[in-house]
């Protein structure tokens, strides 16, 4: 990943008739960076992606790729390529024809076309599928071809709109890894849209957490996880316990909760249940602030029994002012 | 999945069939169950349907009526199988269980019925059981013993008196007028309505002996030559649309041209013109007159087909239709020419038909020669450039 800014969005606003949309968006994406727009559905992440791709016109502001404004260009003239959640492939064309279509439009000679397509099929491990029609392939294979088709055109920015959400969990994580591998190998700039925070954490160089048309926080996955700037981000990324006090909210990740026999900790409570989740266990504790969740290593989990009185302390926590949140 | 759809489809079809059946059952009530039901079959333009609906409504509502009449109406030119074909089919199949109890038809058309179905299609009537029959001024020229005329109808010339102050009366005058006023005369294609048919007949039979008028002998076809030639001669002078002579379809088609002032002179059924005048569709300036010799007209008669019905049941309704009350309905609904002395009828409308005396009609009844005429016309006149 270089330091060069590949994609820049300046003061962009796009509103729909019902006043939903995105306002005053500013974002810089570096060359070779994979940035994720993360948020619940309706937060405007897809809107941003579609304005970059040219499928929506922005009301104001500008979009630049390599410092050249592109917001006035139709999709076919933009150096971007998009992969949707599904139905990307043209159903009446074979895999080969699907991949060749864009190259033909670029007047690339037949032999060269063939070489590039075969090379790309090899890269995505789909050699031998070129004569298949989309409906003869699994959803995962289709998305792989869709990404390959986009990559083939060497876009300056690759736009991915929840490309893996329609796939089942196992394929999804496999596809994620592969995508990350191509992206790093080929040094492509990617804007990735998802509502799945786990996916965002696993893939991204940086994550943009979105809420109701605005950015809440931009940062590396570790940054966003460890230092959520507000309660919204804290709640959206990872597991978090919230303790409501009169004037503030305390947020603690379960792994930062220590459980003590006796009363050494500040908060008293009773063990409610323990649940083994692989290499760690989840222990839930009833307190006067509600249920607090703690992760403990497996070896320690069997020392706590439901009903036992314990106390809790926090190795790390965040404080959010209630007034701030209200504003 | 396909199989499921099929089952649903079959279910829907069955249900709708059941519903249709039950609906039609519900129609007949038992109130007049003791009176015999008489189904009257009639054919023609919509005004005839209106006439019978009116007359039947009045008749059925009279407590002293001896039957309950129902109307089955076949609209002319609607593409339906004609009444004569239906009767012939039933007759030739030897059926005795039909509901063809009574028909109303032009006297001049009956020859065509007999042609198709045989001499014994109609049942001789017992006129002593139809008391009003003695008031009927004309006795039909054909099958007199089987029919009761209930009105007269004739084709006349209709013209716009504003633009044609002095309409042509004789053949020579008409020939001259048509050629002097190109595009202002039209007659409907003879296969689609009787007015055009009567005009073509007029041209074909004008110089033929009277015996030809009521003959179905094909020898007369060769005598039509000069008539055809005249029709071909006037072809270029008739109504034009899109640069070509066209003949409107149906009686109403020619009337529409007159209504819209696209032509000034047409042959038309007297009753249709008078009806359209009365309800204001035709401008008041439109008047009617008769050519010399007259365009053909006919008495319209009731007859009982020999298809199982009981003639006795029909007499009361026939008697009603030729009573002064029935004649008044005919006159006022469709301006029909009465078959009884006009002075017996109490109506303001009688002046309008005063000049059209049913006993002076030219009647042409040539049976299947009519089909030959239509086919010849379609193949030789309609095809003219």
């Amino acid at each position: 990943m270089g330091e060069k800014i590949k994609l820049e969005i300046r003061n962009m606003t796009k509103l729909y008739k019902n006043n939903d949309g995105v306002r005053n968006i500013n974002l810089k994406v570096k060359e070779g960076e994979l940035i994720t727009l993360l948020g619940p559905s309706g937060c405007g992440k897809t809107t941003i992606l579609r304005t970059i791709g040219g499928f929506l016109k922005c009301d104001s502001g500008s979009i630049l790729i390599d410092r050249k404004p592109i917001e006035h260009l139709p999709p076919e003239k933009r150096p971007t390529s998009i992969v949707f959640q599904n139905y990307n492939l043209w159903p009446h064309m074979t895999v080969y024809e699907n991949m060749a279509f864009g190259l033909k439009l670029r007047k690339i000679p037949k032999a060269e076309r063939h070489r590039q397509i075969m090379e790309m099929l090899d890269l995505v491990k789909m050699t031998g599928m070129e004569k298949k029609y989309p409906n003869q392939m699994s959803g995962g294979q289709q998305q792989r071809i869709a990404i390959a088709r986009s990559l083939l055109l060497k876009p300056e920015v690759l736009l991915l709109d929840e490309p893996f959400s329609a796939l089942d969990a196992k394929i999804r994580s496999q596809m994620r890894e592969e995508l990350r591998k191509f992206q790093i190998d080929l040094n492509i700039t990617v804007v990735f849209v998802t509502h799945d925070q786990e996916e965002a954490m696993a893939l991204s160089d940086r994550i943009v957490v979105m809420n109701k048309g605005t950015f809440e926080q931009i940062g590396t996955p570790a940054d966003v996880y460890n230092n959520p700037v507000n309660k919204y981000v804290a709640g959206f990324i990872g597991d978090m316990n919230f303790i409501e006090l009169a004037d503030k909210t305390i947020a603690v990740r379960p792994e930062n909760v220590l459980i003590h026999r006796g009363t050494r900790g500040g908060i008293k409570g009773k063990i409610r249940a323990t649940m083994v989740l692989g290499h760690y266990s989840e222990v839930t504790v009833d307190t006067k602030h509600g249920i607090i969740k703690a992760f403990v290593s497996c070896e320690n989990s069997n020392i706590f029994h439901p009903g036992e009185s314990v106390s809790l302390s926090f190795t790390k926590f965040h404080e959010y002012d209630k007034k701030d949140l209200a504003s | 999945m396909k199989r499921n759809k099929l089952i649903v489809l079959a279910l829907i079809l069955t249900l709708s069939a059941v519903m249709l059946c039950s609906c039609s059952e519900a129609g007949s009530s038992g109130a007049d169950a003791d009176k015999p039901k008489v189904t009257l079959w009639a054919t023609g333009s919509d005004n005839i349907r209106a006439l019978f609906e009116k007359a039947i409504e009045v008749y059925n509502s009279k407590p002293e009526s001896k039957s309950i009449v129902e109307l089955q109406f076949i609209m002319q030119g609607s593409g339906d199988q004609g009444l004569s074909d239906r009767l012939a089919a039933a007759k030739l199949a030897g059926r005795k269980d039909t509901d063809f109890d009574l028909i109303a038809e032009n006297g001049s058309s009956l020859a065509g019925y007999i042609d198709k179905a045989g001499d014994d299609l109609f049942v001789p009537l017992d006129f002593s059981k139809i008391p009003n029959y003695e008031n009927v001024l004309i006795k039909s020229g054909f099958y007199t013993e089987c029919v009761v005329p209930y009105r007269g109808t004739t084709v006349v010339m209709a013209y716009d008196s504003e633009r044609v102050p002095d309409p042509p009366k004789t053949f020579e005058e008409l020939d001259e007028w048509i050629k002097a006023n190109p595009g202002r005369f039209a007659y409907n294609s003879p296969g689609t309505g009787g007015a055009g048919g009567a005009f073509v007949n007029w041209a074909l039979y004008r110089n033929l002996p009277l015996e030809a008028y009521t003959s179905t002998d094909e020898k007369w076809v060769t005598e039509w030559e000069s008539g055809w030639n005249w029709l071909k001669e006037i072809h270029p002078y008739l109504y034009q649309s899109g640069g070509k002579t066209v003949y409107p379809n149906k009686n109403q088609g020619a009337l529409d041209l007159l209504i819209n002032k696209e032509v000034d002179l047409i042959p038309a059924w007297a009753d249709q013109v008078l009806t359209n005048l009365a309800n204001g569709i035709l401008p008041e300036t439109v008047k009617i007159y008769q050519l010399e010799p007259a365009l053909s007209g006919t008495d319209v008669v009731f007859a009982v087909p020999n298809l199982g019905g009981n003639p006795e049941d029909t007499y009361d309704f026939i008697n009603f239709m030729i009573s002064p009350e029935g004649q008044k309905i005919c006159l006022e609904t469709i301006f029909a020419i009465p078959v009884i002395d006009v002075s017996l009828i109490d109506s303001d409308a009688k002046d309008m038909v005063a000049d059209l005396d049913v006993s002076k009609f030219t009647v042409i009844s040539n049976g299947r020669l009519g089909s030959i005429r239509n086919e010849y016309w379609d193949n030789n006149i309609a095809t003219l450039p």
Partner: protein
Amino acid sequence: MEKRTWKTNLFIAAMIAPSLILTMGIIIYPIINTIVTSFRSSDGSGFSLEYYKFIFTDKIAVNNITYTMGIVIVTVMGSIVISYLLALYLRFTDSKISKFIGTMYLLPRFIPQLVAVYAMITVIRDTGLLNRISRLFGKDFRPGLMYNAKGITLMNLWFNIPFATMIIVASLSAIPDSVIESARDVGAKKLNVFFKMILPLSFKDVMIAMTFVFMSNVSAFTTPYVIGGNNPIMLGVYLRKQFSEYANYELAAALSVVMFLFSSVSAVIYIYTNLKEKEWEKV
């Protein structure tokens, strides 16, 4: 699907029986009857092809066939092209006007045929609405659309455009937005998107719409009877004349067989396009 028991079989048979019997009685039997009649010879001695020979050699008959085919082909082409453009507009434009048209365009299908025909006549006849409007401007415009092929074709378009549009709109709606957007994304301009994506993906339904329009117009009666001229006439009117005016029952039978064959050409195309699933359409 689960295995059928004899009960279900019996049920299916019982459900289908009424419609099957009805079909046999009112469709199959008359068809056979008509075919047999059409081959009768005029002297009653046996069977011959004379009526078919007449239909394809008689000047008037041949003229009527060409006339009918001409009108039908123009109707099919015209209604498909106009419907396709309308369907494209309805599918890809999101405005108040397109929504309004989208709800209104089927209206003509709810108007009884004869009413529509007479309504059209009051507009297009030489003294009709168009003429009256022209007279307001001091002109005397006579459309010349009555009693000829132009008027019939116009009326046919009026009837068939809503129908064809309905089929094509359904077909275009089945094409996902992402298919079109990905095409534009890889660099296809609008024309390219149309010819490479939209047209091939809707081609089958266009063919189906064409065959339906063809079949319903080749045997049309009301419109040509009321609007058409006296010669040449469309086959539907010609058939009626042969049957109910001239009582040429054998010729009428042969003519209906011929019309049936014309229709079946397009029916074959319909069945063929429907049955021949391309590789990409198989699920």
